């Protein structure tokens, strides 16, 4: 194999702590021709709104966009499962020529007749933006007749990155919140909205339970295991607690502006971050010291319950090296802390969508020699994983087979996983999963020594 070269224009997106001095360049469009691991605007919108379980999610476009997003995420529901169906207008050649508005209208009526959903989201795909369907007008018309909110999601794939998709989803969600809002303006005492939590593997349920024990009322979750009617009182919450770096921050900002709800950013991943999240929420209600007491008790109990097993696992994992490549950088922060807890060393960390502040913080958090990457391609990932001789790779579906080909353990920290990694319980699951893969005897069977050859 030839030495792996890095595109000249990407040099500022690859950084080695201790060796390099420049600021990491980020937030750039991927270079044309790169084998990027990134997705599109539609993808961003789809993942944010998908867990609204009793809404209709209709993909307006050719069949592909609906096929590729049919039930691939592990967002669980405690009730309706309409969100897991795949609905598409399946646009064909003639629709492209004459426009897809009529078909869209018909599709909406057909679906609403059968399923009686509480609201409908219409996702615009690339083609819709080009042929110029007035999706908003169709939605308005159907809404007037059907009597449920019908919301266009302006998620044409080419309009930016996944982040812009989050924004399109936030716009649609805010529109739903604002429209279905009940007329009572008073705040619900001791209440919060949870934002950016998608109930992957049941994580929302774990977090809800913590808040219940703390005496905090969760008004609505955006969007894990949510129902349309939950959002009618979202505007009455005292605080928005935002998880996940990119996805719902803009909704929180909008709600702050419109309803005066302040927000804090948290992470529920790892012991430190989960505790901090809960303490931060508790300290938002300073005139209720009992909440802080209950929180402290909860953290003590939960930590005590998982520590013995974590220590056992740590003994096996100590000194092992990990590489992280995730979507949002915020997730990377939590992962670094959690891996340190397990005695592991992070040798590579990268994200698809990190911003300048994110990378500055990453630089601070990492040990010298750690490679930091923005919008990496598979060759770069493989190169540094080998150079750093990692034992573990944490990433998503496209990274998994690369890690396995190289002969190292893998943990899926993306949205397809079925195991909850949030909260204290999630930390235990995470540790088990890491242990399961890193300590597996199969790595003794693979020709790891070949690493040396690859680098030549």
């Amino acid at each position: 194999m030839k030495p792996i070269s890095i595109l000249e224009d990407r040099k500022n997106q690859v950084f080695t702590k201790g060796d390099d001095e420049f600021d990491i360049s980020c937030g750039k469009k991927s270079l044309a021709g790169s084998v990027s691991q990134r997705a599109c605007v539609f993808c961003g919108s789809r993942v944010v709104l998908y867990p609204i379980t009793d809404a209709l999610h209709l993909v307006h476009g050719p069949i592909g966009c609906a096929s590729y997003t049919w039930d691939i995420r592990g967002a669980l529901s405690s009730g309706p499962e309409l969100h897991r169906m795949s609905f598409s207008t399946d646009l064909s050649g003639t629709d492209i020529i004459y426009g897809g508005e009529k078909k869209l209208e018909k599709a909406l009526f057909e679906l609403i007749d059968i399923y009686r959903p509480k609201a409908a989201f219409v996702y615009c795909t690339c083609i819709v933006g080009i042929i110029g369907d007035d999706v908003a007008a169709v939605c308005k018309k159907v809404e007037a007749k059907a009597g449920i909110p019908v919301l266009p999601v302006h998620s044409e794939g080419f309009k930016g990155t996944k982040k812009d998709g989050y924004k399109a989803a936030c716009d649609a969600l805010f529109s739903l919140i604002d429209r279905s809002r009940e007329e009572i303006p008073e705040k619900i005492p001791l209440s919060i909205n949870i934002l950016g939590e998608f109930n992957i593997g049941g994580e929302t349920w774990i977090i809800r339970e913590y808040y219940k024990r703390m005496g905090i009322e969760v008004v609505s979750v955006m969007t894990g295991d949510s129902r349309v009617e939950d959002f009618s009182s979202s505007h009455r919450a005292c605080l928005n607690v935002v998880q996940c770096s990119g996805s719902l921050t803009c909704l929180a900002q909008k709600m702050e502006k419109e309803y005066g709800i302040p927000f804090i950013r948290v992470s529920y991943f790892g012991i430190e971050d989960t505790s901090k999240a809960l303490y931060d929420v508790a300290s938002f209600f300073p005139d209720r010291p009992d909440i802080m007491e209950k929180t402290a008790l909860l953290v003590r109990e939960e930590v005590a319950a998982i520590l013995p097993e974590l220590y056992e696992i740590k003994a096996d994992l100590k000194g092992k090296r990990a590489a992280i490549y995730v979507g949002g950088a915020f997730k990377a922060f939590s992962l670094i802390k959690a891996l340190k807890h397990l005695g592991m060393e992070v040798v590579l960390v990268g994200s698809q969508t990190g911003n300048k502040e994110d990378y500055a913080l990453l630089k601070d958090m990492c040990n010298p020699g750690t490679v930091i990457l923005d919008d990496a391609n598979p060759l770069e990932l493989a190169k540094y994983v080998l150079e750093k001789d990692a034992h573990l790779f944490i990433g998503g579906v496209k990274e998994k087979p690369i890690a396995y080909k190289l002969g190292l353990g893998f943990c899926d920290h993306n949205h397809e996983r079925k195991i909850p990694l949030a909260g204290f319980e999630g930390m235990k699951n995470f540790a088990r999963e890491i242990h399961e893969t890193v300590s597996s005897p199969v790595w003794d069977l693979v020709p790891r020594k070949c690493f040396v050859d690859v680098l030549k």
Partner: protein
Amino acid sequence: MLLRHTHTEILPREALTVNPAKTCQPVGAMYASLGIHNCLPHSHGSQGCCAYHRSALTRHYREPVMAATSSFTEGSSVFGGQANLIQAIDNIFTTYDPDIIAVHTTCLSETIGDDLYQITNKAVKEGKVPPGKHVFHANTPSYVGSHVTGFANMTKAMALYFSKSTGVHNGRFNIIPGYVEPSDMSEIKRLAREMGIRPILFPDTSDVLNGPQTGKYKMFPQGGTPLEDLVSTGDSMGTIALGPLASADAARALDGKWHVPCRVEDLPIGLSATDRFIDALRKAAGVSVPDSITRERGQLLDIITDMHQYFYQKKVALAGDPDHLIPLVEFLVQIDMMPIHIVTGTSGKAFEKQIQALTAHLPCKVNVKAGGDMFMLHQWIKNDPVDLLMANTYGKYMAKDDDIPFVRFGFPILDRVGHSYFPTTCYRGGMRLLEKILDVLLDRMDRDAPEERFELVM
């Protein structure tokens, strides 16, 4: 459960696909491109298309799947994607160094009207394509046909772009294997070689998407049809195209351009379709069928006869691609099963007619729909239950909801292994299909048998 949403009453649906039994052209084009040695597929469209197609193929094959994208922006959607593609070509050859870039379009680039001939020519003129390297393209608008159409278009494009004729026969035969698994492609090659034929198989994803664990990551694995073989297809004695939808266009293109005579056969799934394939090889090359192949055929027939009573009048529901379903239905009918609900997402009236002809003599009503979806199939099943379901992984929801024995067949298979290593085509593939079918049918009998009827020997 996902499919508890399926109601039994079948209402007319005009504007809507629910739970699709197909996907779009570009993923088929990407899959075909991966079957060329040292070739990087390139998606000329938004970033998401490429990410989705790579993810879909990665989940199905559990292998790294490489492809680049033009990363369309709002600007390129207005002013055209020329600048993106030329920059992409430059970057790809500089960084990843493939021999070939296979560009496929998307709904976006098709609709804005990018002229790929003109753009790739410009790239060549500007010196972005190093000497000896190639860029070619296929038009694969997502709003026409399905993933099978995309595969067919890319396969035709590679035949037309690379093939040359020196006027001297190369003594070889072109075989276009159709939209089948890497394991099937190896099996088809193996049988051709057993017949004493030197095939040029294209595309050929074996050893690309079913590679071994080596501890190394290679962007371009060792498999794939070599460039010189593709060039040489114009000098071949003939072409055998397997699967009319996926392969016929490419075969006819070679016939039209270089007068390489072609035969189009069904995919060799099951006994008779494989017989026809072997016969086509035999006639084309003027060879006789070796004993080794006759033995394999006999073994398949042996399983059929040994176990025929378990197939008797078992009702089957099927979802898949037309090229697969036609020989599969033929095979199932032949072994006394009754395929009664058959759905493909790919449109085409010819498919419905063929299935109707194959099932005309069955003593029951047969539902068939081209351009249908899984939802429709599930509704049919609810109205007229079956003993066996064969479909891609998404079939598992129906199987669980209605407690139906289920064999995974088609694309994508997201929850089991085997399809990339063990073929379902040719005689041995037929044996594997029967093994899978019998396993689920007999397991069901065992599960449901009252104690006094629980049999040791079956």
